[in-house]
């Protein structure tokens, strides 16, 4: 892929604030390479002006040595400075990009997260930006340092002897050709072996995770064979890569020897015919040997440059996704405390994709403080309804209003504070329990957190833990049971006081005992709030003020549990299924 202008333009816009640092870096590089490059020239002067002529002027020799010594010290200092400057600029840029990228992603709408697996987002934020880091610390460094070294050497060679230098330049296109031909092939072998390696590791990771199953099904041999296949593939791909590398490096070495031989021959003749001095030949031989190192290093950067351009365009792609759900140009601020919690779904229609609607002309009006149960099979549109109320998506037709205000006119941040959501899988962050309950918002006091936990019955459980509220949760609360996690997420709701509360299958996956505990907490939480409960276990919603039965994106029945049973319709069927009475009726 060719790096396109616009994507790199974006990178340069991040580099612009650091242009002074980059300029300093280039100056430092120049000073840093000087000592190494002037050494052959200085020795040449020593040879030609002192040793060869036999002037026995030791003082001049000492001067040359002192100059060289001084250069070495400055080289030492500036190499150090050069690295630090470059890293400082590079790291700051990468950190800025990471933060901006993260901020941009958080602002995107839920539809984006539904489309984009979180795994690849993580790759963008961590690996792709790390590639950028390599771009600065390797590519840029090498291009500047090795590029200048190369130019420097060429200049020195011309300075020493134009004819000999011109002969040496014949080499350049040959080297370039070999390098390019090899690098393309090397990139292929490199990628093949990386892919094989990540497949191998992914396979081991998965098999370790599923080892109990492999053993229970007695599949150890079969899995071992599959492993060996992947291991073998990697081994072969790897050898291929190594072979290419070795051949390339050795070809370069031989090319180096060839050019030295060439210089000795031509230069020797020249010295023989006394058209140049011996010192010049010495310097030439040394320079031509130094000539290959920077070329080899620069061509090595080609790989990184390629992956940088891929990474940059991937990052740019993310940056260019606009949030689908946006705040309206004119927003209406609601006073959070004054919100009553009346919700009206007015003839809404919605589909995730055009042409496949999931909600058809749905009309639903909910009184402040009412508790609504929503029932239906998977795909009936329950969760879509909830997503629309949270404004994870915008309706295609109709409107949703809270206290008569269209939710599209409410700033999203306010809307999210008004409408609270508890999901089936409560999500906990790594951090202390108290921070998890107040969502790291330090303006919420510890006392408030404890009060909330007490209300939902989480206090007792938390206190039993070793460090109480300061217990650090590892790996998103893996040490807690599903019920305990859910109780903590209920405490969150109490702390944040949303006026409308949605429980999306919040009690699934729990055993009956924990479910009872949660049920109690639910009663506390739903007090004085408009509450919408989705459940496939009907026991949770029997006490709802109203139950909405959904089917195929429509409300097919509604009423209290008793009213609905009297209808002898879809709800009754549903209810009987859940009781396991179906068979009694049929048989």
């Amino acid at each position, binding site marked *: 892929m060719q790096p396109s202008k616009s994507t790199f333009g974006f990178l340069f816009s991040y580099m612009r604030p650091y242009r002074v640092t980059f300029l300093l870096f280039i100056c430092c590089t120049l000073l840093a390479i000087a000592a190494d490059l002037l050494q052959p020239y200085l020795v040449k002067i020593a040879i030609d002006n002192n040793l060869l002529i036999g002037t026995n002027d030791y003082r001049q020799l000492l001067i040359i040595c002192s100059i060289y010594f001084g250069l070495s010290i400055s080289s030492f200092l500036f*190499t150090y400075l050069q690295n630090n400057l470059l890293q400082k600029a590079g790291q700051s840029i990468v950190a800025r990009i990471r933060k901006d990228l993260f*901020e941009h992603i*958080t602002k995107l709408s839920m539809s984006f997260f539904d489309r984009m697996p979180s795994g690849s987002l993580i790759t963008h934020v961590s690996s792709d930006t790390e590639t950028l880091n390599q771009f600065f610390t390797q590519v840029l460094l090498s291009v500047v340092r090795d590029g200048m070294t190369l130019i420097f050497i060429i200049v020195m060679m011309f300075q020493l002897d134009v004819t000999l230098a011109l002969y040496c330049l014949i080499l350049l296109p040959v080297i370039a050709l070999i390098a390019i031909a090899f690098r393309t092939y090397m990139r292929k072998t490199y990628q093949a072996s990386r892919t094989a390696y990540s497949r191998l590791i992914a396979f081991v990771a998965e098999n*370790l995770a599923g080892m109990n199953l492999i053993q229970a099904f007695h599949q150890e041999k079969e899995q071992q064979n599959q492993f060996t296949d992947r291991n073998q593939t990697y081994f072969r791909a790897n050898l291929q890569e190594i072979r290419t590398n070795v051949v390339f490096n050795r070809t370069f070495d031989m090319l180096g020897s060839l050019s030295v031989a060439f210089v000795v021959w031509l230069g020797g003749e020249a*010295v023989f015919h006394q058209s140049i001095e011996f010192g010049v030949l010495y310097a030439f031989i040394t320079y031509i040997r130094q000539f290959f190192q920077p070329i080899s290093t620069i061509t090595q950067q080609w790989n990184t440059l390629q992956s940088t351009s891929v990474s940059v365009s991937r990052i740019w792609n993310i940056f260019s996704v606009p949030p689908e759900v946006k705040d309206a140009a004119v927003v209406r601020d609601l006073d959070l405390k004054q919100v009553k919690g009346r919700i009206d779904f007015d003839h809404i229609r919605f589909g995730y994709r055009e042409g496949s609607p999931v909600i058809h002309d749905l009309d639903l009006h909910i009184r402040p403080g009412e508790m609504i149960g929503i029932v239906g*099979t998977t795909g009936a549109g329950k969760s879509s309804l909830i997503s629309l109320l949270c404004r994870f998506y915008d309706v295609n037709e109709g409107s949703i209003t809270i206290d008569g205000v269209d939710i599209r006119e409410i700033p*999203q941040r306010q809307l999210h504070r008004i409408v609270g959501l508890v999901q089936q899988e409560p999500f906990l962050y790594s951090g202390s329990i108290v921070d998890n309950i107040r969502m790291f918002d330090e303006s919420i006091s510890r006392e408030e957190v404890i009060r909330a936990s007490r209300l939902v019955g989480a206090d007792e459980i938390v206190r039993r833990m070793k460090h109480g509220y300061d217990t650090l949760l590892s790996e998103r609360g893996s040490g807690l049971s599903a019920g305990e996690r859910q109780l903590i997420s209920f405490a969150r709701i109490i702390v944040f006081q949303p006026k409308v509360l949605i429980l999306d299958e919040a009690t699934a996956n729990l055993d009956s005992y924990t479910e009872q505990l949660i049920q109690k907490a639910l009663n506390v939480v739903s007090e004085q709030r408009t509450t919408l409960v989705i459940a496939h276990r009907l026991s949770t919603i029997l006490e709802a003020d109203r139950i909405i039965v959904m089917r195929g994106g429509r409300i097919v029945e509604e009423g209290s549990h008793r009213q609905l049973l009297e209808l002898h319709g879809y709800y009754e069927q549903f209810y009987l299924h859940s009781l396991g009475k179906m068979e009694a009726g049929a048989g």
Partner: protein
Amino acid sequence: MKAQQILRDYLTSKWYFYLTAILFIVAANIINSFFPRLLGRFTDQLDQGQMTQPVIVEYSLLLLAVGVSFAVLGGIGQYIVVRLGRLFEFVTRRKLFGHFTTLSEQFYSKNGVGKLLSYVMNDVTAVRESIAMGVNQTTNATITILSAMTMMLLSSIPLYLIGACVLPLAAIPWIVTGIGPVVRKRSLTVQDSLGKMTEAAEEQFGGIRVTKKFAVEPIMMRRFGAAVDQIRDNQLHLVRVSSLFQASIPFLGALSLVVTVAFGGYLTIHDRITLGNFVALTLYVRMMVNPLQQIGNVINTMQRSRASLERINELLAVKPDIQEVESSGSIDLRHAAIHIRNLSFSYPDSDRYALHNINLKIEPGKTVGIAGKTGSGKTTLMKLLLRVYDAPRGTIRFGEVDIRDLSLESLRSQISYVPQDGFLFSTTIRDNIAFYHRDTAFDRVEDAARKAQIYSNITEFPEQFETKLGERGITLSGGQRQRTSLARGIIKDSPIMILDDSVSAVDSITEKKIINMIRSERRNRTTLIIAHRVSALKHADEIVVLDEGRIVERGTHHELLAHQGIYATLHAIQEEGNSDAAL
């Protein structure tokens, strides 16, 4: 044990390859050390005016020959060594994986996947690098230094001059081993902070709904920003030492050259050495900078990899907890009753009994339901039946045979187990369902999918049964995973089936269908069902209620309801409103 010496074994079995490689490298380096000498002689002849045109051509050809032989011989040697290293990696990884398949759950509960993966990735790589690098670079460096020294001595350069010139270089290995570990420590900190940021990103994107719902984006951004800044700080901390390191080695090289030019030049002026020797000396000094750095590197790598090697050897020495007795045999479980007698069990490393004096006899062909809350010992009992852990001898028998006298193959191939989590592999759906026999006929796979109520979901995917699951494929919902896992159990069609809360994430209508299917499918075959929901248990021939590791109630559905105990309470909670719906 043999595993204790994985590296020694490998090296001894391949010693002739290594010897060959070393010979190649030695030859290459000896030849290479002629390079400065040739140039020195060339200089002297030029200087003394003995040069003729054919001699010039001869010298340039000689130099070319030296360069090419060095490249070719060295290249072959290097390739052999590197290949051997990779082969070591291959062999060791295979050994590790094989070893992993023999280790039991007890081991896995103590060692996370991340930790075990690091054996396969980092430790193996570290050892491989150290042997490949060790052999290559040590040989290279030793020979280069030795032959450079010999050449210098042979070319009548006085010893004291050589000593003085080489002196600054002697500091190189010292610096490498001194700063090297610091660089490494700091770069590990960088890696660590990178990992932390990835974790933070993982967490944030996983919990994006929650973050958005609580409108705490700025707080989360700050948290993430802190992780990002930490990386930058650690990187800059690293570069401070690493650039010192990078700068100091060329500096020492330059220092040596200063001495060489000053001292050597002085001697040349006073005609104590020839100009040719002076030229050769400068080249030899340059030649020795790299090998000295290599020796330092080798020392560092060796130190790092010794720990890795020990870790690998320790891991390979872990004995599987579950081992077959020598006389283990097989029996047909179709006609064998399961006898559980006075079974008490506590997990290793735990002083609490998970199961207490369990007595249960399951006649062949019967269905037994097991109820109880989380932590009551239901799953533990299943694990003992599958011999995931060892029950005390004499407590579990199949027919007349103790479970410990059965071969693992005989036991596990006759029990089909459907776990709660519905773990699936990242292969095709078909391979997942036909996990027990990958080459099962396709119609049987379809049949199993139909029975597990997953068929219609699968056929909705564009590639149907060939759909890939996992990271590079699609993700199934919890209920779909459970049903696929159920199909995997059904297709095995074994004498004994264990369903460990296998339909918990399935909606009630589908659950009903599945329970009916299991009843007809498993008619007259031994089936154990663990469930939270009464609806999944009520048809069992016997229902056992566990509480805190003891059997507290047992009987049929109706008997237990009449008993008014835990089961009846469970029933009441789950079927609340039953009286309202009385028909």
